[in-house]
């Protein structure tokens, strides 16, 4: 301890990419991007929530399972892809794992950019790509049973899937 040293500046504790069992904090992640947003005119965010119904079933809760190191890698890849499409965008994404109750946030995506179009598009692109290539699974518990949901076969090299996400983002 050096009493003459200036107080340590508080450094960021909010990573831009995370897969975590802890509750998600959209405001904290938005603030993280706002801290260096002087060139930005827009912040867009997307929050995915657990809803109480799915395909005619009354959902009780969801359990999310992830292959965490690959999920983090895939989220970073998605950010790289989005930055290639919208070079001025600054992006962050957190995905939750474990048991989530109705109304809990399962994913938050935040995009900052000089103009709103890139922020909205990057947000939309990222959630579409998450559903395509990030190794995370929903185990749905509903009234009367449970089921693993299975969506897309994850293939980061599938350029057609990537193009589909881009088209949706730019619609």
């Amino acid at each position, binding site marked *: 301890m050096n009493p003459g040293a200036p107080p340590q500046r508080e450094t960021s504790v909010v990573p831009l990419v995370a897969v975590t069992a802890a509750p998600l904090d959209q405001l904290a992640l938005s603030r993280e991007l706002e801290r260096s947003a002087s060139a930005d005119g827009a912040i867009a965010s997307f929050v995915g929530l657990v809803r109480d119904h799915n395909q005619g079933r009354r959902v009780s809760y969801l359990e999310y399972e992830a292959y965490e190191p690959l999920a983090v*890698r895939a989220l970073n890849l998605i950010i790289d892809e989005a930055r290639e499409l919208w070079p001025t965008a600054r992006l962050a994404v957190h995905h939750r794992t474990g048991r989530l109750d109705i109304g809990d946030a399962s994913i938050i995506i935040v995009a900052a950019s000089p103009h709103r179009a890139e922020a909205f598009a990057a947000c939309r692109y990222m*959630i579409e790509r*998450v559903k395509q290539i990030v190794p995370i699974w929903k185990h749905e518990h509903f009234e009367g049973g449970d089921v*693993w949901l*299975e969506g897309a076969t994850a*293939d980061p090299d599938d350029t057609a899937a990537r193009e589909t996400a881009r088209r949706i983002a730019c619609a």
Partner: protein
Amino acid sequence: MRVTVRLFARLRDLAGAGELVREVSEPATVRSVWQGLVGEMPALQDYEKTMSVAVNADYAKMSAAVSDGDEVAFMPPVSGG
């Protein structure tokens, strides 16, 4: 040589474990590890057409080479978000 097999979601349920250590003969590929697994647990077979695979937490092809100590993952279609 020895590899660690990781299984997720319904594949994990079908196998009854998310992590298995298996002895495989060299030279090994993701496909040969998978075939050994299906030999033990035929119920997994249905996923061959739709699953993704990874070696050491990086997406890979079925033809990818596998070395001693590698972690080989088999993953059903994803449903995050």
